[in-house]
């Protein structure tokens, strides 16, 4: 086994921010372990994304030519990845805890007979014990667990988005580009992907938003989200929700923030009518400034916020919106 392999994700001719975060993790490992760092891209028309990756300080960018490499079906991805791993025999395979990584990593690990750990926030090599140390949130974010590996098998890891800073261009270290061809049997593909639909609105993407206004169970119904949306418009913010509005169908489920939803880290996170459960905070605790608006002075969200207003959102938000509007003029 040698080297570290990152499974990158191309998006609109670029690589995703999570892919850049993986490069940061990968670079850290490759330098202490003195191993090469490969970045793999699967998909059609990845040339521009590949160039971007090559400039971020990896040793090699691999692009795949081969059957089905344009069709991002999870089973195809796993079949391709398993082949790449057999050809290159990397010691660590890094993926993001994304739609792709969540689905692909467990299957890949099972196929390779590899060790696997999902949703890590830290992966380092401990020089004294000569062990790889994995850290991951458990119990819905109530605790963190730290593990060492017991054996020296291949390791498949997914990293939680936002656990590292994205890698910056490194002019001194330009990665080689290599295109590889993969063969696998179509009969390995058991399911058929009929349709992919993105329902997210035209608004600002949660991951990219500088400001987020999030509403929780305290909003009490879909009408109440009118005020949340109004505040978001004044602030140029994205709207997020907790599990409660999603379960109650007050708002689209795709806006959920937390352990099983979006991982966000805006400059300003305004939590309205949110109690502060660890499963939710898991997804927003990296925000620069957190503001809590809650009518219960004992709500645990206040312990996790920088600023708080104790009060009913129906009174606080209109006043806040007015104030911000006045400021704009």
């Amino acid at each position: 086994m040698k080297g570290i392999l990152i499974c990158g994700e191309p998006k609109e001719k670029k690589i995703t921010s999570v892919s850049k975060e993986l490069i940061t993790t990968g670079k850290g490992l490759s330098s202490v372990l003195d191993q090469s760092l490969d970045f793999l891209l699967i998909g059609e028309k990845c040339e521009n994304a590949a160039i971007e990756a090559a400039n971020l300080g990896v040793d090699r960018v691999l692009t795949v030519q081969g059957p089905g490499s344009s069709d991002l079906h999870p089973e195809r991805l796993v079949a391709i990845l398993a082949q790449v791993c057999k050809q290159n025999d990397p010691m660590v395979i890094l993926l993001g805890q994304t739609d792709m990584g969540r689905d692909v990593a467990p299957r890949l690990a099972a196929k390779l007979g590899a060790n696997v750990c999902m949703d890590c926030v830290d992966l380092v090599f401990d020089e004294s014990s000569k062990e790889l140390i994995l850290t991951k949130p458990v119990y819905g974010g109530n605790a963190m667990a730290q593990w060492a590996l017991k054996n020296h098998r291949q390791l498949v890891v997914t990293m939680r988005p936002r656990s590292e800073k994205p890698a910056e261009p490194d002019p001194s270290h330009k990665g080689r580009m290599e295109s590889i061809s993969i063969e696998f049997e179509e009969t390995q593909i058991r399911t058929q992907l009929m349709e992919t639909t993105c329902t997210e609105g035209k608004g600002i993407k949660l991951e990219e938003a500088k400001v987020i206004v999030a509403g929780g169970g305290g909003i009490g119904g879909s009408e109440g989200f009118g005020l949340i949306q109004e505040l978001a418009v004044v602030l140029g913010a994205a709207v997020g929700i907790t599990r409660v509005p999603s379960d109650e169908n007050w708002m689209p489920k795709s806006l959920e923030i937390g352990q099983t939803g979006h991982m966000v880290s805006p400059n300003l996170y305004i939590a309205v009518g949110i109690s502060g459960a660890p499963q939710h905070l898991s997804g927003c605790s990296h925000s620069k400034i957190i503001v809590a608006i809650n009518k219960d002075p004992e709500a645990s969200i206040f312990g996790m916020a920088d600023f708080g207003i104790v009060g009913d959102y129906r009174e606080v938000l209109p006043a806040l919106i007015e104030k911000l509007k006045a400021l704009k003029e």
Partner: protein
Amino acid sequence: MNIIVCIKQIQDPEIPASKFRLGADGKKVIPPEGIPPVINPYDEQAVELALRIKEKRGGQITILTIGEEGASRAVKHALAMGADEGILLQDLTFEGSDSLATAHILTRAIQKIEEFDLILCGRQAADWDEGLVGSILAENLELPLVTLAESADFIEDRWRVKRVILDGYQIFAAPSPAVLTVSHELGPPRLPSGWGIITASKKEIPVWDAKFIGTEPTQIGADASRKKLIKLFIPQRERKCDKIEGEKPEDATSRLVEKLRTAGVL
């Protein structure tokens, strides 16, 4: 449609953070006093999905769990919701199993059951939050897999599965038998009915051990586990909160806006 649902009993994930405790050695989670363990919420939703399919297509629902004696509580809950049979997989050699070992035990148990059209798991167990067992199980059994199912039905000759993605959904078609992992977007599970609770309480839950299902001793239990726990710790999320209380909304929000401007985020 014969459906197998794999469930795990866990500590209640919705206890307030203040009740969450770690052992002094930092190696164990101490169960909260007076709060009984529950069926993993995603597994409860997997049972709900099984029931919805059964209501339309008929068939039999079998619950499988690996756990200690007390885990039959979770099985009883699933039976009270309307599942038909429950089996407890229990053996001293199973204790301390990691995800791969858990998947191995379930694989062997399912191979005993032979006839089934669908296997359901939760998307992840809300204790270690790995999300591995369902997928590994599918690989072991060489069955089609769709993860993060929000709904599923058997239409014509295939399973049609709506899969949740972060910004929307996908539709997959899978031949039968298939493995699905169920996500919370499925919606709330039904409550057990009074009648359900009575019938469940009367049902025997057979126990299958290692010998009966034929697990490989080298693949299960704490010795086979691939990771060694170094420690558990509580993450530091606390911030010093500047809390504005007891002021008129106009004054409170004015002050907040000032503070946010000073902090440079407005």
